[in-house]
């Protein structure tokens, strides 16, 4: 068996919750399902129709009992942010676990309607520790104001011709990054609708991450074509790693894989891309992408910390995460051993195919940077991987 197969065997089975999402698969099934709900739904509807027939008002919505009426949230110098709003106990108390698997907003008069509200089965992420990070509100505000537009913010007309080998390397790297960005956008998409609305701050931040990743996918697709080159080869090996990210059993584990490991790696590649750029166009692309990526990495780091701090059985949570990381680290290893990734980097580092050997020295530096920065972020999250890390500290390149 390979190392990765051994690691998979040792991984605990994923939790049962969330393994089967009850979505209707046909119109017939959908109609049947809603007929079953109709008694409760129909009763509420009929009550309202009857009231209209009587020409009377309900006015129950004017009952302030149980509301937070009179709690005025005050804007700070930069406007009214979630941080400002959450300073009040009324609106800023984030439940450790929520019973509300419906759309009733946190802070509204909702307790009295608990037995009337529907249950959204898909809302199965109901614990704060699986989504929260202490920098979430700050990063959400930052994400909103630091958006950019790949159509107009990149000086595309300044793209200068370079030699064919350098352009091919830039195009191959762009192809790889386009693949990565699909998963980076689809992973939050897979979880956003499973997170209970009480954790709307997390849902909102993940929406900004999806927008960021959509923009990255867009800009790298454009870059591959804008220089007269082409989208080149997808990476079969790395696509298996991307699949592992997408199919992570819990949001915390997936966030660790995507944001700490994957995006940490991509952040370093973006920095390297800026370092290696032969044109101001490429510099601008990588610098702007780098900013977005660093937000995702920061969220991932503190989300992991939040999970480990809040886990009821910390020892078990740590053991579980270590078992998961044994697999997860294969994501980095797969990327930085993949010829479709490291060879274009080496060509750019060496300033051409003729000096690819020199470029491999630069790749070796990148390897060490990626591994060390990953370990530092794990340390910051309270997750010591230094003795357990499965990625070799040194680049395994025979000179």
């Amino acid at each position, binding site marked *: 068996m390979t190392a990765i197969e051994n690691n998979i065997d040792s991984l605990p089975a994923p939790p049962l919750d969330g393994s089967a999402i009850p979505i209707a698969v046909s119109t017939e099934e959908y109609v049947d399902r809603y007929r079953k709900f109709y008694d409760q739904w129909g009763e509420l509807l009929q009550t309202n129709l009857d009231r209209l027939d009587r020409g009377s008002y309900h006015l129950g919505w004017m009952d302030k009992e149980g509301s937070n009426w009179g709690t005025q949230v005050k804007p700070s*110098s*930069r406007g009214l942010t979630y941080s400002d709003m959450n300073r009040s106990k009324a609106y800023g108390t984030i439940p450790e676990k929520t019973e509300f698997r419906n759309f009733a907003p946190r802070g509204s008069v909702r307790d009295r309607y608990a037995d009337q509200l529907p249950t959204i089965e898909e809302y199965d992420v109901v614990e704060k520790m699986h989504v929260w990070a202490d*920098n979430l509100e*700050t990063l959400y*505000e*930052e994400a909103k*104001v*630091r*958006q950019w537009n790949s159509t107009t913010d990149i000086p595309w007309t300044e793209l200068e011709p370079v030699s064919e080998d350098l352009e091919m390397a830039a195009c191959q790297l762009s192809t790889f990054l386009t693949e990565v960005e699909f998963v980076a956008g689809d992973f939050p998409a897979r979880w956003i609708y499973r997170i209970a609305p009480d954790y709307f701050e997390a849902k909102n931040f993940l929406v900004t991450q999806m927008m960021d990743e959509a923009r990255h996918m867009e800009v790298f697709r454009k870059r591959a074509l804008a220089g007269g080159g082409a989208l080149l080869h997808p990476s079969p090996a790395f696509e298996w790693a991307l699949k592992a990210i997408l199919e992570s059993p819990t949001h915390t584990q997936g966030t660790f894989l995507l944001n700490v490991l994957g995006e940490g790696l991509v*952040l370093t590649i973006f*920095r*390297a891309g*800026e*370092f290696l*750029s*032969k*044109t*101001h166009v490429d*510099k601008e692309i*990588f*610098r*702007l992408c*780098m*900013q977005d*990526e*660093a*937000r995702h*990495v*920061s969220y991932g*780091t*503190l989300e992991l910390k939040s999970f480990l701090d809040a886990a009821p059985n910390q020892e078990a949570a740590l053991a579980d995460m270590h078992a998961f990381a044994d697999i997860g680290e294969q994501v980095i290893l797969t990327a930085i051993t993949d010829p479709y990734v490291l060879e274009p980097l080496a060509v750019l580092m060496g300033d051409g195919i003729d000096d690819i050997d020199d470029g491999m020295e630069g790749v070796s*530096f990148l390897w060490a940077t990626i591994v060390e*920065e990953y370990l*530092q*972020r794990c*340390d*910051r999250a309270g997750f010591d991987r230094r003795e357990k890390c499965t990625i070799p500290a040194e680049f395994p390149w025979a000179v």
Partner: protein
Amino acid sequence: MGGVMTDEIVAFPSIEWFELLAQRMAEQRDHFVSLGSCDCTAQVTIWDGPGGDEWRCQVVFEEFGVESVRLVSEEDEEAADFILETDRETWQEMVDSIVEGEGRPGLLHTLNRLTMPGTPIRCWSHDPLGRDAFFRFNQTIQHFINNSATFTTEWSEG
């Protein structure tokens, strides 16, 4: 991007040099608003500062401007999200390149280019999240420094 060249002459390294950049940032508020808010404390350490001693200052970015520029000592380092440390000559090369590019550094002289390999500028932090702030706000910090093209820098001897 980039403001108009003035006849101001300011010595580097000095608090006044960074304060003038802060002033430019305030004058170009619309441009910096378009880049997005920036909230971090950046420390610049020059190994061969005035008198040959290490020179340190912290620039506190808040929202779309600079809240303060302050001279600090080694003990204050933990207040910085990240520290950019190098020698005067590296700053001179970087600023010369920005001036030559009329407010845009050459390919070899962007902040990320100079820090990525750990040399000639070392970007470090006591906290990896603080170092990540350098990446999160990189465009703003680059454009902040790019305004060094709007005045003349006097390179004092160490």
